[in-house]
């Protein structure tokens, strides 16, 4: 994995100021700083890597287009996550509408091709793991996250995987702190049940 140079809040602020005045090079630096985080978040939310790439790119294009409206009331990172969240929610809703018309259980044309594609996507989304059994476990965890409702999924991804604070998540999702905490609790309980067997297996083996 490429190591990104961490910038101080004031250095980020300077880049944002330059980008606000139309400096595309400064904005390019900001893209480089946040692209893995935003891509990760979106990919864990939508599950499909190519859709995630589109949404994550759109997040940055939209951010540049609207950067003059960014007043710095929240951090630039929080603002980016909020844009990504809105685009992701739209995508999840669109998909839900599609799924209402086409059943996911319907046989895929061309035999096992669809299943293979899904497996490949799972491998891509399983993270940079060296050990096969770890990759297998990560696929299960990734799938379990996908089965959560979008509201619970967003909180669990932002807190457990992205390491954001309750306060940042509340700002991104525009909901009270108590709601973030209770969603996190519910998500953990659901995941604990879904992963009970596989975790016991990996612990024993």
């Amino acid at each position, binding site marked *: 994995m490429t190591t990104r140079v961490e910038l101080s809040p004031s250095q980020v602020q300077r880049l944002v100021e330059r980008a606000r005045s139309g400096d595309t090079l400064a904005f390019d630096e900001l*893209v480089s700083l946040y692209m893995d985080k935003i891509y990760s978040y979106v990919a864990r939310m939508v599950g499909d890597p190519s859709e995630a790439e589109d949404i994550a790119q759109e997040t940055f294009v939209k951010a*540049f287009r609207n950067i003059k409206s960014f007043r710095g009331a929240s951090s630039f990172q929080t603002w980016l996550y909020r844009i990504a969240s809105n685009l992701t929610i739209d995508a999840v809703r669109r998909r839900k509408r599609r799924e209402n018309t086409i059943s996911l259980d319907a046989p895929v044309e061309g035999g096992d091709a669809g299943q293979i594609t899904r497996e490949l996507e799972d491998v891509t989304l399983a993270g940079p793991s060296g050990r096969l059994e770890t990759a297998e476990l990560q696929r299960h965890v990734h799938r379990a996250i996908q089965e959560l409702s979008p509201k619970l999924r967003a909180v669990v991804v932002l807190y457990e995987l992205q390491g954001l604070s309750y306060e940042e998540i509340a700002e991104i999702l525009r909901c009270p702190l108590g709601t973030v905490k209770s969603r996190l609790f519910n998500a953990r309980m659901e995941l604990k049940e879904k992963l009970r067997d596989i975790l016991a297996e990996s612990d024993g083996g």
Partner: protein
Amino acid sequence: MKSCQRCQYEVGTRAREAELPAAVEAHLASCPECAQFARDCAATVAALAALGDLQAPQDFRVTVRERVRRDCQVSKRLAGREVWHMPVLPARQAYVAAAALAVLIVVLGIAIHSLMPATGMALGPAMVQQPAGAAGGGHTMPASFVQPMLRQHQGMSSASPWHHDAGYYVAIND
């Protein structure tokens, strides 16, 4: 049972915290069910943390750079284009402007009328009723035919401005 519920809620919400309240720790030490719950929670949180960050695809930054550049070019083109905007006036000014426009139209109409040549063409195809005393009375005929006759009837010269006649024609049209 109540203390188990309380304990599991605390463990579930504080799953990533290093320390638990002393009362919760004491309960965990004496309750195998809650101790198992705590181990399951810890394993779940650890499995989630192990997923970690994903890396954006290789060409991600370049694609965003290209899209932003294209976006900038479109914005510049739009900014460079001459766009005519309707002036937006406050309500009171809009009434004044509308009244001024109406006056202007009336004045212009009168001016155009006064400059028109002394033929009946100005009235176009409008049908004009002849005055009762003119010829036959009550018949309708084209204005181009009636106007010269009326001028003769009233002893006007052909050079007379038309607007003197306008009121007359309107009157008989009513």
